[in-house]
């Protein structure tokens, strides 16, 4: 097989050529500058090590990012979320909200909408509840017209693979607007 000249190979870079010899008889090999050969091998090593780390880390990560553990649970959860006002009232988010805010509109993600309804725990209980916790902070931070809510509080009821309930309470950051 003839060696492929770099100039005839529009997809090849100028420094990468095929050369006969080097390997088994009649074969050809790609000739790269030494630094580039090391770079390629180093890149592959880094990718594989990083991938392995993420696979192992998934056992401790509630989100299991890049750990490839899909359909890992059949857990369920629901939450009662209230606005706790500066004067101590606990107002369910389903009731009118200063500024006309609506929880479902704010989060606009099926996983967290209608939190009062028992639902499947998307990607596992850890993922769902961690996102709910983040959503409390996000909503508290993105409702500037609400001048009465001091913080949001969610009381969750969860069943991990049918076992439970596990009850937890999550709170958002305190809001400056109501202080």
């Amino acid at each position, binding site marked *: *097989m*003839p060696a*492929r000249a770099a100039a*005839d190979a*529009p*997809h*090849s870079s100028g420094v*990468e050529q*095929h050369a006969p010899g*080097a*390997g088994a008889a009649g*074969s*050809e*090999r*790609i*000739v*790269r500058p030494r630094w580039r*050969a090391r770079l*390629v*091998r180093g890149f*592959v090593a880094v*990718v*594989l090590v990083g*991938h392995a780390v993420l*696979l192992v880390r*998934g*056992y401790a990560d509630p*989100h299991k*990012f*890049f*750990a*490839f*553990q*899909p*359909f*890992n*649970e*059949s857990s*369920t959860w629901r939450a009662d979320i209230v606005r706790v006002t500066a004067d101590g009232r606990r107002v369910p988010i389903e009731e009118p909200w200063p500024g006309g805010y609506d929880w479902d509109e*704010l*989060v*606009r*993600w099926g*996983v*967290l909408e209608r939190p009062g309804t028992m639902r*499947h725990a998307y990607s596992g209980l850890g993922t769902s509840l961690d*996102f709910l916790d*983040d*959503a409390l902070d*996000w*909503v508290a931070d993105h409702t500037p017209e609400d001048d009465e809510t001091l913080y949001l509080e969610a009381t969750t009821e969860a069943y991990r*693979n*049918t076992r439970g309930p596990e009850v937890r309470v999550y709170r958002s950051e305190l809001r400056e607007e109501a202080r």
Partner: protein
Amino acid sequence: MSATTTEPVRDEPTLSDRIDDVFDRPASVRSLAVLRLALGPVVVVHLWPFLADTLAGTTYEDHFWVRWWGFVPEVPGAVQVALVWTGAVAAVGLSLGWRTRLVAPITFVCVAGNLFLSQHHFRHNRAFLLFLLAAVALADSGRVLSLDARRRRARTGTSPGDPGDDLGTVWPLWLLRILAASVYLASGFSKLIDPDWSGGLVLWDRAVRHQHLVRERVPEPIADAVVDLVTARWVHTITSPIAVAMELFIGIAIWFGRTRLAAIWVAIFFHLSIELSASVEVFSLAAIVALVIWATPSTRDRVAVVPDATWVRRLDWLARFDVREEPGAELRVIDRDGTVHTGGTARWVLWSRLPLVFPFVAVAHALRRVRP
């Protein structure tokens, strides 16, 4: 007195030689080219919900989102608009093989960029899609089955099928093989060590809570019986370990020539069953198409002598055969080791290496072997 030493004769390549071969010996990138063809539509389907949002005037930052790393500043929503639209256009170019060396990395960067805008964009199937896009971008996947290849042929005066037309560096292919196999193994292993999963509790509970979907999709006369079956605890005690075993089998058996075809068929069955029972976006299509990476990266190393080559040439996307048309000749396949196959064996070798018909031929072949 002098001593002479003789270089030991090495018949078998060492592990180091094999690793060097992966990086330095060119081989066929045709399987990645076939994958590239399919990834364009897959990316467009994946990006469609984001495109629709931008058309409606909303971006990720208009609703709940979570940054991946605290030190990264908030990215303006306009960047997402640019990412998803550029990615969609680049994906079309990717499929066509137009300026592949440029559009393949752009497609990867846009899809990855959109995923890393917010943690809630993450899905396992999207991570798998990133692996595929990265491999296609790193390899010279535009060498064949592309507008780039057509333009090159016009300039150099070569024709399709010339020796070496699909040769390129294949370390991205091997890297993708390792990543893809590890996905099956990681998924299978995590379920194997989880008693709730391997014991059937997880699948059973899902089936019980989604039985209304079964009732909606199954015709009335048999709906009750099907619901009774899929919600029976004992069924999942049996099927869950089988599901785990299938994933582990795919991740291991796909590495060996003797078991690879079986692993690929099991993988097709596995992904189709997931598609029917769960919402996994583009994963089923991407994962089934990605099975082409397990084709041996050499082309036209078997000879097929056929009376009419029309359909074989149309279906031989991976160029597994040097197809020779001899009107009136009996079908013959000359394998890599020189073995000449005729009759039913030749038909099996031929049709089982054509991607589109393989799933059906494999079933027919298996049934014939099972029956006396």
